[in-house]
């Protein structure tokens, strides 16, 4: 390089490149921003923003001043402290010299501040401050497990009772003073000493003392109360108190003012992680004790035991600990809201776990603590705490429990103690030759064993002269007696032992055959008096019979009532039958050979067997059905007929039972299907097409019997209310019959409004149609009571009458209905509810309904017609008449269906609430009548097809019926018109013939109604019609 440079010759001054300039600038900026500060002061250079060196502040030696080498500040010339006092006048910032000083300057100044000399720092505020600082420093130097300012603990939080505050404060300060500098004497202390205060005495006034005493007493009482061992506890608790407390307690032990409370300083370092002054055991001092015990017992084996014993107080609660997560303050909890799941959690297992886990945890803690201790105390200069200690917890396996160990301590009973001397069994000795003596000895031995030694003594005394009893006093046979006595005592012991150790042995107690039999309710076998040498077969049979007897339940067929003897005419056969029944139902052993029918041929026996089976089954059925009267005759017929063929053998009944069991099982799962309407929005959100789009909502399904019960009461009311309406209707019928048309039209105009409300109520159509002209009470609409009464009376007659006047089918139906009508019926509508066999009826009706509906659906043109009847009606009277005539032809068939509907709906009056519920929400029905009714009928047919259904289904059925009824009832608003019309057209007809036409009319008007939504319109329509009538009349 050097040689190269030498080769070149440079002329002039080189032009500084711009890049270099900028780089210098950059450098300056970088230096000024950060780098500069890291340099030592003498190396720092002040440069301007161009990076050039500048000199500033000649007096201060080159300090960089101002804002970017200006004199101003960032805000310009305005001094920072200036604030316009115009708006915030009151604000006045007090300035202090410290505000303007740097940290190092402050440090410099630190020594020059005025402060209280330690000499006069009587109560040690400054000293405490210094102490704390020092302690903090120490804290920093010494690593500690416990974070936070430890020295704060030195100053005991004494804010518990405000009344005592100052006293305690003073004392605590004193404590600190002593602690910090016990050698120096303060002026204040000197003064106090002069005033009579002695070291070791407390400064306090009597009032606070008394107050505190009371508190202390109370606490003590509480402690004594809450601990099971008061002695231990009081002493312990005293120790376990916070140190201030103990200190104070001791100090207040003397009631004399000058108590000798030597302020014993027990350092209570903060070892927990709770907040300052927080005492987790404030309200549960027992736990504090527990914790202390845990800490104090340094991981010894006594820990868990200790805990368990301590727990005795809380053992009741410890099994189940409350969840602890409570209720928000705003949540109110009524009794019904009580959380079923909240309290149920048992923490037993976790509790156990808790006992187990700390053992390891504790070990670790222990280690840590040890280490810490070593660090704190044994950390001699030049020594280091060994990272791994040789010391290890020695663990011993629990001694193995011998296998034959029974975890039950048995105490030797007093009886055994008494007879210890007999424990050594006397030698077995052959009995004496004299059998009498032998028996005597044995008897006495038994007695003595049972009654005790006293008996022996007494008998010895009594029978001293008697040579027979010489064995008692060491005569002949004494040895034998001793032996026997021992044996008997052993026996007695065995017996009494269980008594002694109570319930444990009761489990152990052996079941003898007899006791087991007793428990099971077996009869003991009769000991046959026969010689065992007699024929084996007979005993066999005997045994068998006994067995069958023993296995009986409760003699269901013990004595058959007369009715249940299907073979009365043949006693032998009856006997065989009974035997058969026994075999069949009582279980036990079954004789393979039927000895009773020994003389019968195989075929005959088989046939008889089948007969028996049938009879037995019939009887059983009869019993089950509790209709023995019905069941048995049929069974009799059954048997006497004798032509029955049985394909199944005798195994069948058994199978039946099994299948019954299966059926019981099979009952679940049970599947049911219902209609359910999802809301349109739900369908939309599920991205599905609403299956019920544009269709009317189905009526809500009743949920329980209770609901229906509640509603029925309502519906009963509704029924009562609707009575007058009905009568009104009737009255109009009559009026129309009387041809008092002008009046009726006038009335109907007013009536229209009335019916707006009443129209919704289900009208008992059955009554409406067939109510008689003879019902005069209906004339007066005000006399409602009367009407009702008469209604009741008339209704019974009406049913009969309706039977007469309706068509052939209706007649048969009426018969059916008539059968069920009880003579005294408060309301005809309830008659079917009251009958016993209502289920069957419903089924029957539904069956007839299906027939009927089929019949009905065969004539679609008739359905189609009424849909445009409205227009036809309006268009010209002649056309309407034609239609009418058409109606009449199909009327007889038509009314069949409707009649049934009516009867059915009246029958199901109990669910009339359905109508109410339904009608409360009148639905716009877009479909014309024909399609609507046909679909309804189809649905109905479906329903009635599954005729035997449970309640739900039935409700639903009636519901659909009720929809029909609703239609009719709503149609009844125009009924008077129709009846009027009818009366006009067929004035000379009998009512029977005119009924179908009214029916038809109703259909027509119904279709109209559907087109017009509101009932308001209906009324107007009726008005219109009445006008129309007038017009036609003219």
């Amino acid at each position, binding site marked *: 390089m050097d040689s190269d440079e030498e080769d070149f010759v440079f002329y002039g001054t080189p032009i500084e490149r711009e890049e270099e300039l900028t780089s210098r600038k950059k450098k300056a900026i970088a230096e000024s921003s950060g780098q500069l500060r890291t340099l030592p002061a003498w190396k720092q250079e002040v440069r301007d923003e161009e990076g050039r060196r500048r000199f500033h502040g000649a007096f201060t030696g080159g300090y960089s001043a101002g804002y970017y080498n200006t004199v101003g500040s960032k805000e310009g010339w305005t001094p920072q402290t200036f604030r316009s006092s115009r708006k915030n006048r009151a604000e006045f910032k007090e300035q202090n010299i410290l505000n303007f000083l740097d940290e190092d300057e402050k440090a410099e100044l630190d020594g020059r501040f005025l402060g209280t000399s330690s000499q006069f720092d009587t109560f040690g505020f400054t000293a405490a401050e210094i102490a704390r600082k020092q302690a903090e420093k120490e804290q920093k130097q010494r690593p500690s497990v416990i974070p936070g300012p430890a020295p704060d603990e030195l100053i005991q939080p004494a804010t518990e009772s405000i009344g005592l505050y100052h006293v305690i404060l003073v004392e605590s300060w004193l404590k600190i003073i002593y602690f910090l500098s016990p050698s120096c004497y303060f002026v204040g202390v000197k003064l106090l000493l002069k005033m009579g205060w002695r070291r070791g005495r407390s400064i306090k006034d009597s009032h606070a003392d008394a107050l505190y005493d009371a508190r202390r007493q109370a606490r003590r009482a509480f402690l004594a109360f809450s601990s099971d061992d008061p002695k231990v506890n009081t002493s312990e608790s005293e120790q376990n108190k916070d140190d201030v407390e103990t200190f104070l307690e001791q100090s207040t032990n003397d009631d004399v003012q000058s108590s000798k409370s030597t302020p014993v300083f027990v350092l209570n370092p903060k070892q927990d992680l709770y907040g300052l002054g927080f005492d987790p055991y404030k309200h549960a001092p027992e736990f504090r004790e527990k914790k202390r015990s845990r800490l104090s017992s340094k991981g010894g084996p006594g820990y868990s035991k200790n805990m368990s014993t301590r727990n005795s107080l809380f053992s009741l609660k410890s099994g189940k600990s409350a969840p*602890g997560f409570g209720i*928000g303050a705003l949540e109110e909890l009524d009794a019904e809201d009580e959380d079923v799941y*909240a309290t149920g959690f048992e923490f037993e297992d976790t509790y156990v776990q808790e006992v187990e886990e700390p053992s390891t945890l504790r070990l670790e803690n222990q280690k840590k603590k040890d280490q810490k201790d070593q660090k704190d105390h044994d950390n001699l200069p030049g020594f280091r705490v060994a990272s791994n200690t040789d010391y290890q917890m020695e663990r011993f396996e629990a001694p193995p429990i011998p296998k034959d160990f029974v975890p039950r301590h048995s105490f030797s009973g007093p009886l055994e103690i008494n007879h210890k001397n007999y424990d050594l069994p006397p030698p077995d000795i052959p009995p004496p030759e004299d059998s009498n003596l032998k028996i005597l000895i044995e008897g006495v031995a038994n007695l003595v064993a049972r009654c005790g030694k006293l008996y022996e003594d007494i008998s010895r005394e009594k029978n001293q002269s008697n040579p027979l009893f010489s064995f008692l006093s060491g005569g002949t046979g004494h040895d034998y007696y001793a032996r026997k006595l021992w044996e008997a005592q052993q026996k007695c012991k065995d017996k009494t032992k269980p008594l002694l150790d109570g319930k444990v042995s009761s489990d152990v107690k052996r079941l003898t055959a007899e006791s087991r039999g007793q428990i099971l309710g077996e009869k003991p076998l009769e000991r046959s008096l026969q010689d065992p040498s007699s024929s084996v077969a007979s005993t066999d049979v005997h045994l068998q019979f006994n067995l069958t007897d023993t296995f009986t339940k409760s003699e269901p067929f013990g004595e058959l009532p007369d009715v249940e003897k299907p073979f009365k005419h043949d006693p032998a056969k009856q006997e065989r039958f009974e035997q058969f029944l026994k075999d069949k139902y009582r279980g036990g052993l079954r004789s393979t050979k039927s000895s009773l029918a020994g003389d019968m041929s195989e075929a005959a026996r088989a046939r008889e067997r089948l007969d028996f089976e049938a009879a037995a089954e019939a009887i059983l059925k009869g019993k089950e059905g509790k209709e023995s009267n019905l069941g048995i005759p049929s069974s009799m017929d059954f048997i006497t007929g004798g032509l029955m063929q049985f394909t199944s053998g005798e195994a069948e009944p058994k199978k039946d039972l099994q299948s019954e069991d299966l059926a019981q099982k099979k009952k679940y*799962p049970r599947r049911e299907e*219902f209609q359910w309407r999802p*809301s349109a929005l739900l369908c939309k*959100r*599920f991205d599905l097409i609403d*299956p019920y789009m544009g269709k009317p909502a189905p009526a809500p*399904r009743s949920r329980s019997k209770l609901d229906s019960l509640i509603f029925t009461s309502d519906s009963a009311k509704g029924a009562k209310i609707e009575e007058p309406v009905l009568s009104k209707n009737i009255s109009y019928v009559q009026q129309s019959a009387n041809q008092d048309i002008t009046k009726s039209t006038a009335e109907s105009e007013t009536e229209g409004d009335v019916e707006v409300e009443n129209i919704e109520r289900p009208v008992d159509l059955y009554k409406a149609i067939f109510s008689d002209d003879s019902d005069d009470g209906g004339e007066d609409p005000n006399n409602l009571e009367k009407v009702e009464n008469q209604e009741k009376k008339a209704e019974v007659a009406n049913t009969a009458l309706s039977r007469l006047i309706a068509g052939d089918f209706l007649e048969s139906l009426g018969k059916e209905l008539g059968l069920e009508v009880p003579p005294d019926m408060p309301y005809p509508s309830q008659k079917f509810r009251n009958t016993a066999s209502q289920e069957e009826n419903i089924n029957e009706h539904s069956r007839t309904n299906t027939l009927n509906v089929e019949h009905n659906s065969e004539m679609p043109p008739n359905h189609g017609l009424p849909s445009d009847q409205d227009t036809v009606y309006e268009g010209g009277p002649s056309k309407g008449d034609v239609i009418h005539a058409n109606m009449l032809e199909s009327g007889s068939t038509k009314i069949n269906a409707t009649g049934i509907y009516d009867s059915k709906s009246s029958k199901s009056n109990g669910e009339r609430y359905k109508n109410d519920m339904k009608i409360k929400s009148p639905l716009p029905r877009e479909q014309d009548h024909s399609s609507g009714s046909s679909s309804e009928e189809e649905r109905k047919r479906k329903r009635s097809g599954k005729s035997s259904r449970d309640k739900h289904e039935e409700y639903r059925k009636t519901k659909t019926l009720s929809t029909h009824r609703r239609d009719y009832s709503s149609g009844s608003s125009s009924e008077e018109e129709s009846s009027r019309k009818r009366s006009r057209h067929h004035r000379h007809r009998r009512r029977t013939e005119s009924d179908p036409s009214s029916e038809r009319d109703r259909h027509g008007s119904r279709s109209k109604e559907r087109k017009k939504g509101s009932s308001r319109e209906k009324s107007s329509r009726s008005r219109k019609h009445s006008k129309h009538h007038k017009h036609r009349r003219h």
Partner: protein
Amino acid sequence: MSVEDLPRKEVNVLKGHEGAVLSARFNADGNYCLSCGKDRTIRLWNPHRGIHIKTYKSHGREVRDVHVTSDNSKLCSCGGDRQIFYWDVATGRVIRKFRGHDGEVNAVKFNEYSSVVVSAGYDQSLRSWDCRSHSTEPMQIIDTFSDSVMFVCLTNTEIIGGSDDGTVRTFDIRIGRETSDNLGQPVNCISMSNDGNCILAGCLDSTLRLLDRSTGESLQEYKGHTNKSFKLDCCLTNTDAHVTAGSEDGYIYFWDLVDASVVSRFRAHNSVVTSVSYHPKENCMVTASVDGTIRVWKT
């Protein structure tokens, strides 16, 4: 799948709940799991790494069930405070609260499009709530149950509810029909098989019952565990080969689906195993217990 593949090895213990954990559920892809418990919090975990991610606090009382949308953006939860909370997962804020149940809410689910929340309540009703609109009223209340509804399951077209009245009711929105299968025993939990043909119903007589959905027949009964007083979960494994459920004695049971034999059982928790949830794809399972822990099991 052989027995060896069953998740029986404890991989992680998720600790954090202070009190009983009432439910733990995998999210849709199985990467995360959510738990809720008596400490009124919902917690989001990564069970595979054993990391606690987030805590959702707002419930006033215990949280009984939680469900997350398939896109992991929203949560719904329910519990003793009778409300359904609709959360934003990322921010941890409650977006909406659905009120209307008259009693505690036992279970809650999102539908497929996360537009509807269906909740099952102690007030014997199922309620569906609209997440799209701001209406406070439920879209529909299904109240045909005659006792507390304990669980709800949703398919694309159906709402299935299990109730203490012993019925499992399927509400088919497509055809507007309610199918009620009466099991005769209080139903605690229902779980769909992955092929969608069967329902597993956990009953309070310590029996799980497998129902054929199309016919309503009982296909199998699984017994052996104890479930008499707690609301315990049951589910099928991801391959539908086994049935699993927790027990009140802290055990987890695995049954063979077909022959109903107990294939495996082991003690998983110190206390009642309230909830089991199976990973949608892998052989992995999380279980929650009254002892406050959630454990992750793998093969």
